[in-house]
């Protein structure tokens, strides 16, 4: 586990090509350990691609990218990085509990963790339901629970709070807070600007380029507005 003050992920001039098109144009960023970094930007801007590169499942990545000091996706990282995909990526024809139990046995998580996670993401009531029959919000919580299995040091979460009611969203954010306090590094993507305010650090990504990386308060100061939507607009204008 890395301690606060160090960086958990470092990217320098990271480029991703998909077919002939370049979708990430040489981005440079750094995720502080034991902190929540928000990857914020409109959809289609390359957020998922960047997350996939960090997890190590994206092809055609160039530039320098180190995750916990190692090459992304290397065998030694597969227990230490948890990935919550945007689509739930669970077996539709298994129940929530069966999905969790299967992935728990793959990552070597202890049996009891499945029960704990079901409570944590508020899915106890749906534990026996087939994933096929779940609502969108429930599905994204299945994905989150799967990412949390095995107590990873780095959590990469793609839009984990989409479609959730405010109460549950609040609860998840306080869970992210607790995780960060216990030393877990979180990278959380969102297309909703107001979620940026909940992060320690914000990376603004648009059209495959990083507009800026900063603490939310610092961002507000620099752009002269508390409103993150406005701040985003000003940064886009400044970049022109």
């Amino acid at each position, binding site marked *: 586990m890395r301690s606060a003050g160090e960086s958990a992920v470092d990217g320098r001039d990271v480029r991703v090509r*998909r*077919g002939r098109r370049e979708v990430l144009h040489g981005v440079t960023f750094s995720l502080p350990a034991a902190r929540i970094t928000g990857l914020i930007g409109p959809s289609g801007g390359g957020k998922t691609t960047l997350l996939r590169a960090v*997890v*190590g*499942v*994206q*092809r*055609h990545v160039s530039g320098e990218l180190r995750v916990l000091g190692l090459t992304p*996706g290397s*065998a030694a990282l*597969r*227990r230490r*990085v948890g*990935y919550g*995909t945007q*689509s*739930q*990526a*669970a*077996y*539709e*024809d*298994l129940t929530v509990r*069966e999905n969790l139990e*299967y*992935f728990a*046995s*793959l*990552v*070597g998580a202890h049996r009891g963790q499945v029960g704990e996670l079901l409570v944590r993401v508020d899915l106890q009531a749906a534990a026996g339901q*087939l994933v096929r029959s779940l609502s969108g919000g429930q599905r994204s919580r299945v994905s989150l629970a*799967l990412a949390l299995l095995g107590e990873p040091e780095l959590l990469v979460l793609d839009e984990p709070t989409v479609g959730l009611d405010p109460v549950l969203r609040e609860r998840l954010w306080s869970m992210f807070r607790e995780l960060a306090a216990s030393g877990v590094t979180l990278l959380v993507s969102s297309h909703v600007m107001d979620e940026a305010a909940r992060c320690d650090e914000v990376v603004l990504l648009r059209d495959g380029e990083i507009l800026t990386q900063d603490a939310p308060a610092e961002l507000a100061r620099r752009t002269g507005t508390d409103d993150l939507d406005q701040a985003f607009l000003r940064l886009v204008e400044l970049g022109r």
Partner: protein
Amino acid sequence: MRRTAATAARVLRQLRHDPRTVALLLLVPAALMTIFRFVYENERVAFQQAGPALMVLFPLITMFLVSSVSLLRERTSGTLERLMTTPMSRLALLGGYGVSFTLLATLQAGLVVALSLGPLGLSLAGSTALVVVLAISVALLGLGLGLLASAFARTEFQVVQFLPLVILPQLLLCGLLVARDEMGGVLHAVSDVLPMSYAVDGVHHLAREPSASAAALADIAIVLAFAVGAIVLGALTLRRQTD
């Protein structure tokens, strides 16, 4: 091993939630065999000639369908990507599919063989156990071919289109409809490189010759070699990194 066992258990659990598919898998071959027997009601010799080959053809078709669709789902639903972010190896994943589907194939083949040799009155000169082993080998071949097909399809609709492409030529040339010895040079040569030709040769040995175990074992070995080849090639298409 632990991950292979967990995967096999997971695949079987998925099947348990889908009793209709399991019922179709087990009962349709048995029903077809019965129909086949009564189509040849007045030509028992014809049934005796074509029946054994059918016993090893069903596992190919069913396993091809089940495995191509299952693995395509793994690829398109994001579960394969998630598996690749865990410490599981591709070998362990395919091992899990191999174990669970072989179990299913054994049940299916056992049922068809028992029905054919029992109530339907098909007679076998050689070893019944070897027919079942041959059927299981063919099932693994179906798994490998299905895995390969899943790499070249984007949707379930596409992947079932591979069935006529991959299976039908083998059905025509394997010696089920016309004996391989009676085929012209080119057809015979093509039939020589298709795995099902050896499966049907093998089952014919077992059906017609009382002491043909050695010849049948050689055919089983060839079918298994094709199966392993297809599975290894297919494993190469399961990539950790995708676009």
